[in-house]
């Protein structure tokens, strides 16, 4: 077994581009997932019985099936219903919707954790529903949902590697291709694993730091 790091050094521009795509999908996908997830949670809480059931069913399906199957359905099944997507947008949409299902559950439990009395008090002083959401629910639950949200962001980053299977030019696809072309799997995959490991560790530590710095902003202990 040989380990020749020059194989990797020669391909640095391609690797940097792959890493860029990974980080782009991760950041954009996570933000989109959190935003969609928030609206799903609001819809389930305030949209009435039927909307709650329909959204609940969709969330259960998204959480009960593998991400890979969902991606295949969109990417290979899409063209049959007139949805012709390039790998990158297909991957971005896929990860946003997949993540949104999990984020909606995080926000839903965040809503449930806010004491009923606070909401009733808001209703008593005549706040509208959107004011209650913006002024009471959102600020009070932010600190509660922060740890699981950061955890989910890390999970989504690891999930982006799956997009290499539908040929999204992110880091896993780039380095696997380099490994295959140069017959240097060991070198390419070691670099690949190290990249994710370091990124996950940094994100995890930063998240932990943010959590401990912000605990004083908690409205109540739940």
């Amino acid at each position, binding site marked *: *077994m040989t380990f020749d790091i020059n194989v990797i050094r020669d391909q640095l521009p391609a690797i940097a581009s792959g890493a860029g795509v990974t980080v782009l999908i991760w950041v954009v996908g996570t933000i989109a997932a959190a935003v969609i997830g928030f609206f799903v949670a609001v819809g389930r809480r305030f949209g009435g019985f039927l909307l709650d059931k329909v959204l609940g069913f969709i969330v259960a399906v998204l959480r*009960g099936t*593998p991400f890979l199957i*969902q991606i295949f359905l969109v990417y290979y099944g899409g063209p049959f219903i007139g949805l012709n997507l390039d790998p990158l947008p297909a991957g971005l949409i896929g990860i946003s919707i997949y993540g949104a299902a999990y984020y909606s559950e995080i926000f839903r439990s965040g809503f449930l954790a806010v004491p009923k009395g606070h909401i009733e008090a808001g209703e008593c002083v005549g706040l509208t529903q959107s004011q209650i959401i913006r002024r009471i629910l959102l600020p009070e639950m932010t600190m509660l949902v922060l740890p699981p949200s950061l955890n989910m962001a890390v999970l989504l980053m690891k999930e*982006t590697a799956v997009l290499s299977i539908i040929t999204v030019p992110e880091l896993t696809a780039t380095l*696997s291709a380099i490994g295959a072309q140069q017959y240097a799997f060991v070198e390419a995959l070691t670099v690949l694993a190290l990249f994710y*490991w370091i990124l996950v560790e940094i994100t995890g530590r930063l998240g932990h730091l943010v959590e401990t710095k912000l605990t004083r902003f908690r409205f109540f202990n739940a």
Partner: protein
Amino acid sequence: MSIKLFELLLYASIYTVAISVVSILIGFAIAILLSGMLLSKKRLFITPAQIFISFFRGVPLLVQLLLIYNMLPAIGLNVPSIVAAIVGLSLCTAAYQAENMRGGFASVPVGLIESAEMVGLTPGQIFRRIKAPIALRLTFPALVNEAILILKASSLVSVVGVIELTRMAQDLAGSTFLPLQIFAAAGLIYLVINWIVALAGDFIERSLPGVPR
């Protein structure tokens, strides 16, 4: 989509279930060892366990599978892809299960252990009769969760060429030009399997004795 295609998917799902069950059991055994190392209070044991857990939780499962699948031949071990798949899934789930177990052992009420010491149980007896049953009872819901995660994650072993549910769906979708129906059917099978696991988990949990405080 014909019945024949659905039968093929069902047949392939046996592999999905088998691979997942074997991996969870092997992972469970490794996790016992890892959580023991974490709780040993000796740096010599704690640090390797921490690095192991950090690595397998920090690197995407797909990358782990690619690593194992390509690394084993590079160090002269030629194993069938299904073995590489099981090794990858087991190591990954071991890291997650070890964290759960450590939490379970840490939440065994101290009072119970102290009373066990008072009545003269040996450390071995305390572990077998008090700590282990309570810790396992406490981590049971997390174990069911992990089982569902692994069932879904097992779809990734299709990449190293194991013919399980996802790979079968991929092959059939390619040969029949019915990707929508076939991937939807595969998704449905995953959903039903996970639903059964969740129901069974709930049932078993309710029949287990509660944990004294």
